[in-house]
């Protein structure tokens, strides 16, 4: 039971970690993306359509990434090039994608009433490692996307903190005018960040349809995009902090399933509220966003 709990902790943590790593990069560039939920939803839907019609997993992942990339490109035009309010634009994109996927689902698959299922993305067991007692099957028999999330945690964390590109990215988020004066192309930096995040949100969304459920229902993301937003804060804008926070929430979600099966009358809805309440608590205790980029959410228009 502990073994399956550990395995499902990681399974639950993977999609929110992927999306949160993207959001970390976006926020370091000075943009706040309220539309992660929409980008994930577009990825989830696109993955289903692509796998249903092509049958190929790679195709599903690529199409999912492309769909979320398109959503984030629209957001980039709005918040970077014409500098509209980032919060309202992100909220509008969430509504837009929820509407489009709802309409498109009906147009593509009709209303047959039967649940539409696709093949699952198979786990990738890492050979002898899976034979380690307890940890082996939990850690080394996961979806390829879970390994990717771990790998990206290391890469993103290192790149932001230790590379020249990371320094330039953070300059855009701390003081875009100064960054521009130093010859950094703030627009290009923020565009790149949003496109990168789009790919990760799309993969996070694809994980929901191709690994969790093998189907698509309206609102399948269930607030995970907002949990990703919360993870960035709780992880204090550090990749490994975010990964730890993702595991914590993955555990809370996994615990809910485990307990639901064994304990009756469990107020599991309160478990589901946990990430949100914890975010509020952490923010209150941090007294503001000491670790947040200074220019987060502030529009910057090129002279």
């Amino acid at each position: 039971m502990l073994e399956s709990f550990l395995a499902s902790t990681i399974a639950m943590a993977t999609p929110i970690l992927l999306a949160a790593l993207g959001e970390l990069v976006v926020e370091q560039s000075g943009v706040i993306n309220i539309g992660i939920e929409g980008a994930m939803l577009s990825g989830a839907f696109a993955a289903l359509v692509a796998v249903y019609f092509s049958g190929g997993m790679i195709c599903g992942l690529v199409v999912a990434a492309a769909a979320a990339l398109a959503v984030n490109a629209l957001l980039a035009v709005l918040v970077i090039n014409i500098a509209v309010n980032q919060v309202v634009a992100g909220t509008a994109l969430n509504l837009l994608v929820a509407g489009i996927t709802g309409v498109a689902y009906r147009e593509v698959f009709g209303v047959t009433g039967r649940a539409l299922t696709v093949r699952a993305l198979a786990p990738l067991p890492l050979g002898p490692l899976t034979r380690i007692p307890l940890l082996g099957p939990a850690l080394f028999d996961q979806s390829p996307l879970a390994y990717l999330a771990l790998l990206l945690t290391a890469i993103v964390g290192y790149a932001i903190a230790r590379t020249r590109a990371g320094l330039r990215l953070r300059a855009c988020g701390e003081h875009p005018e100064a960054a521009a004066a130093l010859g950094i192309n703030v627009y290009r930096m923020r565009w790149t960040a949003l496109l990168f995040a789009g790919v990760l949100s799309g993969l996070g969304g694809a994980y929901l349809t191709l690994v969790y459920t093998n189907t698509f229902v309206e609102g399948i993301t269930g607030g995970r995009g907002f949990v990703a937003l919360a993870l960035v804060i709780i992880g204090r804008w550090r990749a490994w902090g975010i990964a730890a926070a993702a595991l914590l929430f993955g555990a809370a979600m996994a615990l809910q399933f485990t307990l639901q099966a064994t304990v009756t009358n469990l107020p599991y809805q309160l478990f589901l509220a946990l990430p949100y309440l914890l975010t509020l608590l952490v923010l209150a205790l941090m007294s503001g966003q000491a670790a947040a980029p200074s220019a987060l959410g502030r529009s910057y228009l090129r002279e």
Partner: protein
Amino acid sequence: MSARALLPSLAALLLAALLVAVTLLLLGVSPTRAATGLLDGAFGSPLAITDTLVKATPLIFCGLAVALAFEGALWNIGADGQLIAGAVAAGGIGPRLASWPHPLAVSALLLVGALGGGAWGWIAGWLRARRNVSEVISTIMLNYSAAQILAWAVHGPLIEASRAFPESSAIAASARLQLYFAPSRLNLGMALAAVLSGLAYLYLYRSAWGFALRAIGRSPRAATFHGLATTRVIITTLVLSGALAGLGGAVQVTAITHRLYEAFSPGWGYEAIAVALVARLNPLAIVPSAIFFGALDNGAQAMQRAAGVSAVLVQVIEALVIIILLAFDSAAGRRLGRGLLSPATPDSAEVDA
């Protein structure tokens, strides 16, 4: 604010309708059939018209909540959670008011709803004013918390007597707002919403508090410099904003649903952002704007039957209207030096006029 200020809104609505019509054509759906279905469902009969007004009512309350906060550059995305908090408070005490006289019971229910929503708004206001926490993040988190608490309440402490259905017990008959125009569901909630839009207008444009709020919205630094108590204004505004949305939740409980259930709000708080933006944040314009969106919601099902296109298409229209208005506003803002809503920040501490 003159009627001319609403011209961009009309243009945005037309442009959104045009975009959707072209998309429908490409999908092989007849836009005229969709439009006639929509209109028929929204205004095709006296009952359809009154139901449009009923559907507009929560949107007026939430639209006012959004407009009030946005005027102060407080980005309250949490009208949905505040409405749910108000509904839970009202639906929670409703069944216990059986022995109360009708006017008192209804008043108590509405008051409790406003208090519930106000409390939910206060959390965001306090976090923002005292702990410097962005109200954008806090209100989103409070939306999800409220939705989960509602789900827990109707499965647990508030579940109806037979414990068979995940819904709360019906509120006492004395606490129900009567439907004077049966069979239509038209009720006094609509009138209350209209009165409040007038009061909100006076508050925003004719009172010292409204002046302070708008000054802070334009430039918090200058407002502080002129000795305005920004902390108090921020907390008061988010409490009032939450109370308006909470009242909307209570009206829904006392007049329409009489009980609570999961997914009580279909997203009124988010739709209200479109309502408020189309009204250019003017409380008086929020009533017609909400009726427009109420008509979309009400006609959506009929459109689905007539043209075979999903009712959530309406959500696409709402989103497009917001995006187009933002884009218009940004263009105007550059010409005039600053727009109503842009460029601005979620943490308005950095906004300067």
